[in-house]
């Protein structure tokens, strides 16, 4: 058994439907204090359903065992380092969970009168101010529900502004290193995508950008630091090129964890950006959401922000829906409020100085890993790394082992894999983001695991190709799953 792992008991567990048997129950309802009503009478006989076929019937103990057993089949930050590049899997402080469950916040209804919602609104206002200060932007909307949703909002804002100026324009320029959400978002807003090829350093090619931009270009969507973990050193010039043609610059804030307290997008020419509160501001990923994709803009985009806008009238907060230029709503109500609470709690716990130190620690950890691995794995782009470092599997591929195989072997050492095969501009990418919350001990174990795997590839590549060996579930047939999709249980 390599690294941190040991064998331990993992129980089999059927699906809820397979445990179910008629008459078992895990619920209690309060006594009804009003007269009972026949549903068929209230709803109309044709509208009342007879039963929910095959819906589970299980006891409370069976439920807790079922989900607890399933939970033990998961890996999580609470179990160890989760070095997924561009995902910023940092520790999720539990005090944030507790404050989000404070009764007056948890049960606040979005339509309850403003007079009994001032505390809820104050929290939003505090978060908006903090995010504006961190990004150097002028205004923030908290309405988007996720990063990709923030992108959608941001590109809608760009389109609305350009339409207001007279012409929506037709295309958006996106570097080939970008997240897949960027082109998908541009398409959802009716823009065609022009691919910007990265230069030999993995960064924006200014000459190529200048050649591509014309008066049909609406915007450049850029990630900074980019997905190779490198700060775009020509970002100011790039934004000047765009602005001189009347186009805007969108920044994907996925990698903001590298910049907080060191540099502000608003100071280097960005017009609009989103933040992933579930990355930079540590709200838990929860196995794939909920997140929050707050969007920050410069003054010229503010009139177009989604409604409502929070405003203070005398000493009271209220929601302003009277915004004639607004793009409208991107989500019901005011956003993923519970996530906003957690993000503000994180910012309060760190404070301004603490946020900057967290960024520096994230940079330190990424560069420490880079140093530890640079003699064992190829690194296609060698500019200084920010919060993540990207290797390629070139050297290992010669032995028939690819990045996906190395990732699976890493599981045997007790780590979640890094990000596999992304960004696409790196052949066989190995993208590692440790975040600031890992200590030296865990980093050293990770580095040693990666070195051990590199050695295994030299001596016994099959060991790596067949990995993982230590998990409850060995390699899963994803091709078979897609060929003949089974998406639900059937009796």
């Amino acid at each position, binding site marked *: 058994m390599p690294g941190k792992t040991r064998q331990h008991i993992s129980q089999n567990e059927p699906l809820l439907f397979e445990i179910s048997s008629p008459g078992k129950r895990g619920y209690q309802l309060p006594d009804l204090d009003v007269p009972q009503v026949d549903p068929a009478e209230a709803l109309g006989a044709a509208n009342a359903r007879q039963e929910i076929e095959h819906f*589970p019937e299980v006891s409370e103990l069976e439920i807790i065992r079922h989900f607890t057993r399933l939970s033990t089949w998961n890996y999580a930050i609470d179990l160890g380092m989760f070095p997924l590049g561009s995902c910023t899997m940092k520790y999720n402080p539990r005090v944030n969970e507790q404050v989000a469950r404070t009764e007056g916040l948890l049960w606040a209804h979005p339509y309850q009168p403003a007079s009994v919602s001032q505390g809820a609104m104050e929290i939003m206002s505090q978060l908006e101010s903090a995010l504006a200060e961190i990004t150097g932007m002028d205004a923030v909307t908290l309405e988007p529900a996720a990063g990709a949703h923030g992108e959608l909002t941001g590109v809608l804002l760009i389109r609305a502004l350009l339409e207001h100026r007279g012409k929506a324009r037709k295309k958006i320029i996106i570097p080939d290193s970008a997240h897949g959400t960027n082109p998908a978002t541009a398409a959802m807003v009716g823009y065609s995508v022009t691919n910007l090829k990265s230069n030999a350093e993995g960064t924006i090619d200014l000459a190529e950008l200048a050649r591509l931009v014309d008066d049909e270009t609406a915007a450049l969507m850029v990630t900074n630091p980019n997905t190779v973990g490198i700060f775009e050193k020509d970002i100011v010039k790039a934004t000047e090129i765009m602005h001189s043609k009347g186009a805007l610059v969108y920044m994907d804030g996925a990698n903001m964890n590298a910049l907080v307290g060191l540099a502000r997008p608003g100071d280097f020419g960005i017009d609009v950006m989103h933040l992933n509160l579930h990355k930079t501001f540590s709200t838990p990923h929860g196995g794939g959401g909920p997140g929050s994709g707050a969007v920050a803009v410069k003054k010229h985009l503010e009139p177009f922000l989604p409604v409502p806008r929070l405003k203070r009238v005398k000493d009271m907060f209220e929601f302003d829906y009277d915004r004639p230029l607004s793009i409208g709503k991107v989500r019901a109500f005011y956003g993923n409020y519970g996530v906003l609470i957690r993000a503000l709690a994180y910012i309060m716990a*760190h404070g301004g100085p603490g946020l900057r130190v967290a960024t520096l620690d994230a940079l330190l950890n990424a560069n420490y890993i880079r140093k530890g691995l640079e003699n064992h794995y190829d690194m296609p782009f060698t500019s200084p790394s920010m919060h993540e470092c990207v290797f390629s599997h070139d050297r290992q591929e010669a032995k028939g082992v690819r990045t996906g195989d190395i990732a699976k072997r890493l599981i045997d050492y007790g780590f979640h894999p890094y990000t596999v095969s992304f960004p696409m501009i790196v052949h066989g990418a190995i993208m590692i983001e440790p975040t600031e919350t890992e200590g030296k001990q865990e980093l050293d174990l990770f580095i040693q695991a990666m070195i051990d795997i590199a050695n295994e590839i030299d001596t016994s590549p099959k060991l790596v190709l067949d990995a993982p060996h230590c998990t409850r579930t060995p390699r899963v047939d994803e091709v078979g799953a897609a060929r003949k999709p089974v998406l639900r249980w059937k009796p």
Partner: protein
Amino acid sequence: MLATLGLDSLDGLYAHLPAEVKLNRPLNIAPGKSEFDIVDYFRRQADRNAVGFASFLGAGAYSHFRPVLCDVVASRGEFLTSYTPYQAEMAQGTLTTIFEFQTMICQLTGMDVANASMYDGSTAAPEAAMMAVRVTGRHKVLAAKTVHPEYRAVLNTYFKYQGLPVTEFGYDGATGCIDLADLESKLDKDTAAVLIQSPNFFGCVEDWKKAAELAHKHGALLVYLFSEAVSLGILEPPRDADIVAGEMQSFAHPPSYGGPYAGIIATKEKFMRQLPGRLAGETKDSNGNRAFCLTLSTREQHIRREKATSNICTNQALIALMATVFMSVYGKQGLRELAEQNIAKTQYLAKGLKRRFSGSVFNEFVASAGAQTPQAINDALLGKKIVGGLDLARFYPELSGCMLLCATEMVKREHIDAVHEAFR
């Protein structure tokens, strides 16, 4: 560690940043606070809200009791602090619960396949409509005025910049249900989808069979929306719909000032490949045992980029997990009994009030304020620590003087009697 890197200070780590981008001052954010101070701050803010009030607000966010197990399970770090389950070998826990969630959504909605969840009901609605546009190759969408106004607002935002027209059709002033004649007059060969919600924003149960008939006659799809998931426990599932999209908040998540919630989209098997969002599928591991993984990802943005079915790349896994626990706790019988309690409370509330519409309702309905104004009634109730109903003038000027009231299993008879009193 600094020595390993040949640095003498942390500042050396970003010395390579161009001078013009560096922030040369500290962030203007107060220094870090202790756990005690943070808990205290949020408690103080929470106490400025309506704490310990009874509430008759629904309108897309419902107060239902949360079985304790929902939080117990969702608080386990193995679920809370894990990522989207790309690495199936170490994410079978999350994947299995998603598969169970998808199955239960199918059982509740009468559909064949369901996705792993969407952001919420309001964004699931336009995603469902965009799916219908892809399936039919047509570009127009008809939405009922009885669909939640904020869902329609989001639909408009998503559609207007893609050049896809959204037309609304009206409701019958007596029943509060969709005006079928108006729907029929607006259907044509360019209509991709008809969107209805049931129970609708007024709480009325819609005739989805007739709506489906009309839509299908013109080659359009019927999209059935719901904002109150508990209704699925007692209402006939909309089997004639082509796509069902809705909001799962009622299952284990409190109103939480509007989010996070979880939406869903379910559909017929033949439209499976046009579904947006994550899907968990069953497969085998290399030992031949049952296992699960994310599947059909060729629909998604990280593979298809600008040709993807949507730019969505997450679901609301943790909220969906809470809903999965909620559904297992209540189960087949409990969900029905829960729905019946909602009906009983609502009928008791309605009996003392003047209903504006005659359509059958589940757990909310429109009441006329009579000689008073909704504002006056709500103000009087607030003084008794009761949050009243939603003044409908905000969304439906023609219904000024009316309010939308919701009664779940959480309101007690004494609160309902107090509402009766306030209306007198």
